[in-house]
């Protein structure tokens, strides 16, 4: 394996975490390809091949609509996110495309609260190596929680 690409990918995962934790939504959107897939799906659905997901977005347009939703239209308790993302595991690698996974834990902290384990799971990713750098072609966040703690607003 190419050490250079592994380091690049590791840095890319950490930048993703930094963007969502800092609510840098424009930067978050720019980490995806135009025709991307972004899905947050319960492990139960994933393992039983049931297509339902808590959130299922296709293409950057839907990502933009989601960001408009969380910033302008959905009423919700404000909260901070803190992502801890493991080192990626590369499953297959070509010069254009990386199939890889990483585990994540997301802690949620509300204004009057203490940090809670909010969502724990695994990113199942397909990352494209483009002239503009690495971009997410597909990210499926498969979460272990049987229950979402009330509402899931921000991307994970």
């Amino acid at each position, binding site marked *: 394996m190419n050490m250079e690409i592994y380091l690049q990918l590791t840095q890319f995962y950490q930048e993703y975490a930094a963007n969502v934790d800092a609510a840098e939504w424009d930067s978050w959107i720019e980490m995806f390809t135009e025709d991307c897939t972004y899905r947050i799906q*319960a492990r139960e659905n994933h393992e039983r091949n049931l297509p*339902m*997901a808590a959130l299922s977005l296709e293409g950057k347009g*839907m990502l933009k609509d989601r960001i408009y939703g969380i910033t302008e239209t959905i009423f919700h308790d404000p909260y901070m996110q803190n992502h801890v993302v493991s080192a990626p595991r590369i499953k297959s690698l070509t010069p254009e495309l990386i199939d890889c996974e990483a585990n994540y834990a997301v802690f949620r902290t509300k204004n009057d609260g203490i940090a809670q384990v909010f969502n724990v799971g695994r990113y199942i990713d397909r990352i494209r190596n483009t002239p503009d750098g690495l971009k997410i072609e597909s990210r499926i966040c498969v979460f272990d929680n049987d229950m*979402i703690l009330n509402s899931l607003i921000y991307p994970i």
Partner: protein
Amino acid sequence: MSNETHIPMRPVWDQPDTSRIPFKVYTDEQTHQKELEKLFYQNHWCYVGLEAEIPEHGDFKRTVIGERSVIMVRGADGEINVVENVCAHRGMRFCRKKHGNAKEFVCPYHQWNYDLKGNLQGVPFRRGVKQDGQVKGGMPKDFKPADHGLTQLRVAQRGGVVFATFDQEAESFEDFVGPEMLHYFDRMFNGRKLKLLGYNKQRIPGNWKLMMENIKDPYHPGLLHTWFVTFGLWRADNRSELKMDKHHRHAAMISTRGEGGKNAQTTGVSSFKEEMKLHDPRFLDVEVEPWWNGPTAVMMTLFPSVILQQQVNSVSTRHIQPNGHDSFDFVWTHFGYEDDTEEMTERRLRQANLFGPAGFVSADDGEVIEFSQEGFEQKPFHRSLAELGGREIGDTDHMVSETLIRGMYEYWRKQMED
């Protein structure tokens, strides 16, 4: 009453009607226990699942009625049984898988085993052990396996949906639902086989009745939910009706989508966003289906356990599973129909982005329920107001009314106060 700060032991209704609801109905654990008994375990049919979840003989799904764990299973004869997940021997909740396929149920503790109807089949060492030519131990001679099965519930199936009750005396499912609501039930479950699309599950830290009320409250969607107002899916100027069964426990909110956009009714509605345009209109790529017979949304509450949702092409059941007076799990089962094209399945899945714990619309509802519960807990001597549309109870041809909430509490008081 607003200056009164004495915390009562029980809910106190300060009017003969139900236009003011004491906060105590949401905050009192003893009231909650009584609700479980009177509303979930006696006299009512509760939702357990869809036939499509257990298509093969031996398929089972573990779920709950109120706070009691039950198993819905398709037996060797193809019939659907519902049994309680508590071993008749030492009371262990033996079934740990959420779903699967079984030939029998075995409690691992002492290997008591039951057939898929819940009948006790075998007890290890029932006749003791033979040692030195003598039989030692074992169950008493008068032990009758037939007396020690799992608790078997009555089961009702209609249109592919499965309900059950612990109450052997309860009226029939059809009488329980009543003709007014059966009409809308049969509209959605009209005999076509259902196709399971999957689940969304959320834990909402609020009293379970708040979710029933949420779907008996046509006042809020056009105010809280920007998507509903802006895109005309649900708002005060849509053609709509509110209907109840004769006991006022179940209800249907029936609405037909309007044009959306700005008019006299959106003036002053802060959630209305005139400039809002979707980057990707596929979220609302609605296709009219023949079975709708008009209405674009019918939201039904079948008291106490389930909400049946049709919002344009998105259809689901939403199962209320209380855990204590101040929390419930809310389980959404999304489905389609056997004759759906691939495009229709995709459409249903895309529109599901509006619903569930992350939904553009429904995420709001979980949040307001949580904060309502916070208000109730801090002020348990107080009461809420449900006077919109008057203090009386009856069907309406508009949605500017809280009559369905008043109706539910009229029924609640009759059940709880006798």
